[in-house]
């Protein structure tokens, strides 16, 4: 083994573990669903696609066995190397590339469907097989990611020598083979689904033709031969009878050709997705994705982004996360796990750059202090450097808050959006929304900035813990999200708080985010609740009022100044699913506070200009407070006071919202209104 002083046997062993885990799961995942991958149609015969799909599973079976052996071998090489380095025995070398077994040949033939086979076709086995291939593709994707991340540090752990180079080559080859297997598996699933959909449409259309023929008195046999009874020729026009017979025969031939064409096309598509018996899907690296391609996705709707993401190989996904984390982290339609990885990387990159900058500035400040006095210009330079250093250190402190809050959440923390520019934007989940059964998206209000992450995270954490503890079936089936995906208004710096602009912009972004949550959810029952606080309620309202509404099960608002409409029925959701809370002493939503405010003990001292200037914006109000009966929403009972305590631990305010999030509507205490069934 090559002489090297920097080999890290521990890391090598961990990498070997990742290889074993990924490839072992690859093999077990395939084995567990291999029966479902081949459509077994008991009724038909005749579908070339069925034959092709069954052949595909034979080839894939061989591929999986081969990769399993290759992975086991490679893992063994790494473990052995780790043990040998530990024992300071450096003589062994990693083996050459193993002999891979060849799979059986796949079949390809032209469709020979008969009318009988078309009419008796059953799409169910193809739908089932399509689902199995899609599941398998997702598992390949996951395993490839596990593998890619597992072997990423191989170069650091085992940096020098021929053996290390051979190991890196093997790691890259296996990585590319695993990665390249994703798209073909996904494409087979897609193709089988196309066939299932197409065969139903064509079968139904064929039945319509047959019904028409029979209604005209024609007879059609199983082979599709159309005949007219003798008395049709005798009693009517023989030309008309012949025309009818020809017409229906042509229609049936035509539709049968369409079915055969579809069958051929899908069968050939599947045949093209079969791995080569020797080379599998090859080890060629996939094309790199450009920045402009990723930038384009930010302008596209979430369902298009999701489709794009699924067309990327795991290696390409890894590349865009690594190269463009600031873009991928904001893509609605990309799974939460991947967004989290991208945003954490973006945050770490920013912190590294800032720390490096601070280090440089400190050095320059020190150089100036140590050097000869530079007079006025030297003092100016010193002051400028000092100010810049203070600014950079403030930025570091700001981002450290995000980092420490994330660390505090441990495995429950998912950073779904991060942008430090300006006041900052941040989306932070407590729990994984892609696997949770219930997700609540909480939108903060006025004066919320990046550095307010601690208090806002505590609010959503309280809600997550209360709601999750209420559900007994599974731990982690509730996720809550602090969504600062908009530029919250500043007060009293400007009049943004009394205008609609920020809420309209935020509403559009929130709408897209919630659509993305629905798309990337991994399946099973899923409920989403949007919760707005203060000005955040106007953001939720704008998302609900636009287009086809906000894709949530419930809307909860607390401390709301109004929702830009005078009736809950306009929010594109059944009004009983709109819940408003208003605490005594909350001047934003409680009308009883108004006289006290006007009385103005607390207003004294404020520059009259501020009040006067903002008073000019009276006409830009947000509407009636949604807890008022005439608004038509449910008012849930609140036992806290003031504007900020709606998510206080041990409060009825919090418990009622937790019940809404998990859909236990009949347990919510209402001041007025009625719960949905």
């Amino acid at each position: 083994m090559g002489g090297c002083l920097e080999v890290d046997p521990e890391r090598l062993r961990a990498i070997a573990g990742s290889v074993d885990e990924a490839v072992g799961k690859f093999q077990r995942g395939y084995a567990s669903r291999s029966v479902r991958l081949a459509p077994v149609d008991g009724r038909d015969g005749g579908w070339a696609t069925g034959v092709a799909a069954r052949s595909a599973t034979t080839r894939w079976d061989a591929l999986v066995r081969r990769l399993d052996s290759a992975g086991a071998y490679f893992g063994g090489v790494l473990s052995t190397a780790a043990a040998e380095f530990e024992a300071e025995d450096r003589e062994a070398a990693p083996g050459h590339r193993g002999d891979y077994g060849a799979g059986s040949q796949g079949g390809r033939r032209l469709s020979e469907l008969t009318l009988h086979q078309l009419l008796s076709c059953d799409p169910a086995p193809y739908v089932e097989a399509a689902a199995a291939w899609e599941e398998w593709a997702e598992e390949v994707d996951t395993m490839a990611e596990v593998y890619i991340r597992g072997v990423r540090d191989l170069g650091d752990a085992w940096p020098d020598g021929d053996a290390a180079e051979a190991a890196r080559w093997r790691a890259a080859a296996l990585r590319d083979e695993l990665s390249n297997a994703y798209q073909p598996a996904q494409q087979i699933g897609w193709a089988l689904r196309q066939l299932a959909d197409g065969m139903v449409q064509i079968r139904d259309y064929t039945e319509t033709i047959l019904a028409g023929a029979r209604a005209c008195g024609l007879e059609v046999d199983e082979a599709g031969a159309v005949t007219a009874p003798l008395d049709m020729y005798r009693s009517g026009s023989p030309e008309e009878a012949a025309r009818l017979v020809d017409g229906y025969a042509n229609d049936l031939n035509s539709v049968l050709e369409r079915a055969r064409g579809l069958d051929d096309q899908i069968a050939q598509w599947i045949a093209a997705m079969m791995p080569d018996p020797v080379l599998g899907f090859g080890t060629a690296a996939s094309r790199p994705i450009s920045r402009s391609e990723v930038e384009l996705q930010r302008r596209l709707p979430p369902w298009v982004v999701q489709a794009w993401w699924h067309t990327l190989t795991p290696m390409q996904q890894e590349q865009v996360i690594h190269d463009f984390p600031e873009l991928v982290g904001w893509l609605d339609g990309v799974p939460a796990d991947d967004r989290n990885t991208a945003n954490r990387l973006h945050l770490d990159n920013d912190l590294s750059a800032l720390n490096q900058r601070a280090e440089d500035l400190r050095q320059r400040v020190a150089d100036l202090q140590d050097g000869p006095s530079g007079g006025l210009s030297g003092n100016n330079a010193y002051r400028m450097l000092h100010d810049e250093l203070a600014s950079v250190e403030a930025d570091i402190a700001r981002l450290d808050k995000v980092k420490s809050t994330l660390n505090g959440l441990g495995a429950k923390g998912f950073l779904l959006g991060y942008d430090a520019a300006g006041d900052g934007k941040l989306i932070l989940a407590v729990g994984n929304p892609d696997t949770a059964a219930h997700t609540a998206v909480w939108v903060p209000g006025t004066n919320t900035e990046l550095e307010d992450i601690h208090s806002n995270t505590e609010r959503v954490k309280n809600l997550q813990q209360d709601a999750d503890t209420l559900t007994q079936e599974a731990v982690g089936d509730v996720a809550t999200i602090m969504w600062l995906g908009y530029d919250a208004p500043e007060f009293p710096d400007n009049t943004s708080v009394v205008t609609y602009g920020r809420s309209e912009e935020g509403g559009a972004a929130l709408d897209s985010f919630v659509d993305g949550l629905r798309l990337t959810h991994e399946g099973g029952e899923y409920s989403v609740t949007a919760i707005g606080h203060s000005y955040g309620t106007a953001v939720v309202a704008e998302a609900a009022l636009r287009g086809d509404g906000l894709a949530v099960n419930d809307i909860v608002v607390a401390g709301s100044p109004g929702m830009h409409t005078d009736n809950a029925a306009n929010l594109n959701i059944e009004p009983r699913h709109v819940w408003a809370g208003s605490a005594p002493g909350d001047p934003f939503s409680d009308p009883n506070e108004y006289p006290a405010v006007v009385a103005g003990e607390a207003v004294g001292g404020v520059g009259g200009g501020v009040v006067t200037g903002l008073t000019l914006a009276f006409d830009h109000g947000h509407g009636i407070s949604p807890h008022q009966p005439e608004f038509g929403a449910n008012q849930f009972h609140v036992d806290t006071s003031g504007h900020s305590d709606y998510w206080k631990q041990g409060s009825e305010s919090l418990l009622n919202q937790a019940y809404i999030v998990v859909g236990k509507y009949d347990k919510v205490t209402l001041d007025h209104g009625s719960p949905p069934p």
Partner: protein
Amino acid sequence: MSPSRIILCFVVLTLASGCTGGSGKDVESVKKVPRAEAIGMVNDYAARTAGLITPGSKLENPATSAPPCEGRGGELSETVYYAAGHYQVAVPADRHLPTLRRLREHWQQEGYRIKRDREFPDGTGDLIVQSPADEFDITVASTDPPTAFALSISSPCYQSDEPYQPAATPTSSPR
């Protein structure tokens, strides 16, 4: 709400956002208790409540933390915090209402303030009480399905000399 109210209320909030102990108290008047001690008190309350629910019962899925208290304006203090804990206690479905009634009676006798007391037609319910001695809140609620009680305990705001560090906040493993 009329725009005039919005504007004036923002002014009030801005002015009122001086740091408090989260219950309208000045920071100076908040009792000093180390975070670890407060979490120990939360766990003690939880253990006593579990014992009241069913003697010898186990606290499942525990999660404790000691985050900052919020002031009236939503601001946080570095040193003023509260301790909280979430748990589940297994209880058969047919014992939920009898147990809740027994708990309520016990706590009433002990002078606890009953903040919420609900019984539902499906044989489930919930109860929120506050201890008179130290203002700890105790929430007991039927889970869905009703195989356990969700139990949460939270302390009032305390003051600690240790500044808030989310990563260093005592907490159990994620649930």
